[in-house]
């Protein structure tokens, strides 16, 4: 997803760090990584440590971090739209306008990164401290408990206690039902493919007016 952008910008002190939230481990991620042949670091995160540290709930989400290690854009949807929700369930076709909206959102996100890499703090996409704090998703007690519960369930699944582990992962879902990364990882540990199967679509349908991917709050128009 990021290879062309990385190659374009890597000479300007810019790096992509892609983190695979993959409780089944490196072998689950390997085919994707080998196909994409990324030249930036691709890390394997079986415990979803990065989701915990950065309060992420879905993929792809991203954080912008400057040269000093400061967050200039906290966790947000990384250049995708939820047009897939309008997909025809039998033909898997997407309405043309959704395809276009998705491509535009992606272009806008990549252009924003280019602008930030070129202009640093002068970029209108690099948020000031007050705005970055305001946009930081709140880390609640239930979210903390969900991460602890997730870690326990995942550990049990890895250590031969699959049924018990999956039951505990259900509790993690109940504690943070908005975290698609927890539900989909649990489904994937249960049966590969389940994370995108009928139960996934039922859960997406049940969102109603709620977002699957919250839209990115980014100024419209071309980056300058």
């Amino acid at each position: 997803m990021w290879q062309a952008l990385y190659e374009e910008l890597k000479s300007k002190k810019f790096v992509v760090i892609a983190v695979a939230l993959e409780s089944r481990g490196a072998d689950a991620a390997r085919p994707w990584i080998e196909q994409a042949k990324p030249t930036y670091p691709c890390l394997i995160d079986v415990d979803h440590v990065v989701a915990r540290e950065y309060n992420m709930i879905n993929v792809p989400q991203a954080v912008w971090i400057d040269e000093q290690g400061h967050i200039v854009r906290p966790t947000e949807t990384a250049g995708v739209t939820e047009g897939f929700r309008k997909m025809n369930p039998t033909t898997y076709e997407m309405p043309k306008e959704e395809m276009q909206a998705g491509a535009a959102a992606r272009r806008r996100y990549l252009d924003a990164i280019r602008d930030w890499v070129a202009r640093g703090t002068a970029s209108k996409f690099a948020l000031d401290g007050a705005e970055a704090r305001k946009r930081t998703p709140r880390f609640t007690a239930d979210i903390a408990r969900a991460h602890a519960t997730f870690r326990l369930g995942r550990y049990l699944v890895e250590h031969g206690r699959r049924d018990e582990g999956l039951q505990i992962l259900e509790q993690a879902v109940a504690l943070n039902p908005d975290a698609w990364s927890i539900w989909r990882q649990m489904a994937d540990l249960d049966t590969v493919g389940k994370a995108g199967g009928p139960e996934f679509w039922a859960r997406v349908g049940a969102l109603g007016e709620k977002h699957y991917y919250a839209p990115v709050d980014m100024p419209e128009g071309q980056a300058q």
Partner: protein
Amino acid sequence: MTTIISTGGVHKVTDRPDGTDLWLTPQKFEAVTGFALKPEGFCRDAVCIPIPPGRERHVHHGRKVNIAAFAELTHRPWVGTESGDCWVLEEPADARDAALRSLEAPDFALPDLDGRTHHLSDYRGSKVLLASWASW
């Protein structure tokens, strides 16, 4: 054998829990939590969390420390299996929230496909797009 998973790693102890209470020697307690029990309370670096009067008996006695009481006092999630043989101790939500709001990017260490460990801090001096993805 009881397993305790904390941010510091996976620990095995021979102590058995009593309900959610798990009493450890001060040495083991410190290895798991990073906190030492001192007269001032639970201390890590220069910071001490006092033990409320009247609660001492639930927190420590007979030269052992109750990790469940520590978790409760310091608002740390303490989650275990039904049999009590495996536990996770998490950092408090308000500490994580404050850390994120400080806008200092939390460091982490994760392996790549070849098993080589990368720290976020290895990339200090570059702008970083930290992006999640998954096969599922």
